[in-house]
């Protein structure tokens, strides 16, 4: 969803944003508060006059925005949730109970309807919204473990790729061989750059084995690695 920002009417735009958050049309966790503050600062700089009331209104609205974002980013308080559920029967007086009675019956009716409906299975889209109670630890734990399962499955394949690289038959591309090559290059030339070391060959395994060999040589104290300017080339030389 895109929201057009009217720079001349900043407050209405911010209020629109808050309304979108409250109505769950956008996810608060995706809103960059720092970006909004930056836009507001630009707006203030461009404004000819600044009213204290406007600034106060901005601070109040920005506070509401920050609160929405904090709520979206942090897990809900489980204890408070349980308290809210328990409070139903404790706090209600007779008149409330009487007014609430039809809806309690309706809630039971809905449960029966849902039970009947749950006996029918329909084709799934694969993107069905999960139904869970806020603070449902069982669901969150299940979700967490499935995410870990997916992540570890991916890592295993990544690790396997690295193992494949390390165990290639070509001896020139093993780490030890590459370490020897680099040391020999440095004996001939006082200092070489990373680009020069990689210029001989291209290919994923060669780049990976070169970098690992450099790191290992640096760890062993045989070479130094220096970058003399930001984003510049890396210089490699033998330590005295």
């Amino acid at each position: 969803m895109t929201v057009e920002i009217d720079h001349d009417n900043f407050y209405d735009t911010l209020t629109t944003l808050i309304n979108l958050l409250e109505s769950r049309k956008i996810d608060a966790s995706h809103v960059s508060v720092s970006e909004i503050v930056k836009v507001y600062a630009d707006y203030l700089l461009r404004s000819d006059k600044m009213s204290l009331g406007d600034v106060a209104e901005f601070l109040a609205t920005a506070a509401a925005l920050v609160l929405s974002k904090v709520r979206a980013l942090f897990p809900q308080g489980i204890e408070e949730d349980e308290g809210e559920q328990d409070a139903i029967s404790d706090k209600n007086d007779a008149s409330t109970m009487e007014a609430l009675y039809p809806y309690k019956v309706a809630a039971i009716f809905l449960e029966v309807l849902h039970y009947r409906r749950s006996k029918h299975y329909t084709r799934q889209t694969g993107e069905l919204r999960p139904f869970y109670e806020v603070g449902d630890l069982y669901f969150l734990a299940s979700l967490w473990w499935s995410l870990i399962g997916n992540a570890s499955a991916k890592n295993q394949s990544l690790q396997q790729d690295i193992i494949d690289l390390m165990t290639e038959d070509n001896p020139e591309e093993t780490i030890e061989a590459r370490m020897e090559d680099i040391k020999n290059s440095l004996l001939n030339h006082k200092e070489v750059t990373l680009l020069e070391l990689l210029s001989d060959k291209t290919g994923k395994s060669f780049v990976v084995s070169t970098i690992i060999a450099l790191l290992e040589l640096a760890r062993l104290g045989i070479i130094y690695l220096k970058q003399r300017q930001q984003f510049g080339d890396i210089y490699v030389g033998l330590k005295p």
Partner: protein
Amino acid sequence: MSDSSRETGEIARKIEAILFVSTEPVKITELSSTLSVSEEVVEEVLRQIKVHYDSQHGFTLINVAGGWQMATASDLSDVIESYNSSYGYRLRLSKAAMETLAIIAYKQPITRAEIEELRGVRSDKVLETLLSSGLIRVAGRKKGTGSPLLYRTTQEFLEAFGLNSLSELPTEEELRNEGNIS
């Protein structure tokens, strides 16, 4: 076989094909315009298909959220669950959430304050749960002090409870005349 029954059979095949690929209930109006046949014919064919499925097949047609959808037969739910327990459409709602949902279903559009007035307790977290599950949605703001948000039930609510429309719910009078609840 007469021309008429052959034609009906052909319409039934087409309807089956559409329902088979759809993941959502398909409205009679959609079927009617897609197949260029009257809504009455579509409705009649749907009923014939349902009778046929119910008598001979492991699936059926359900009439939910204003449309028709293919679904497995209710007596086979155990088979599906033992085949794959992740299938299903189960809500995990607390008693408080179900009660709030019932209030919204009957009193919509309704504000949070009005819900809290009825329930006698704060309901912000319950509303948060219902909004997250997609069973309710914000349906504008009420005119007046503070312009509070108004809440309504959604299409997903109808689907989750197997309702074709809200009019299928019992009236408030009927609910009041029900027996005591513990």
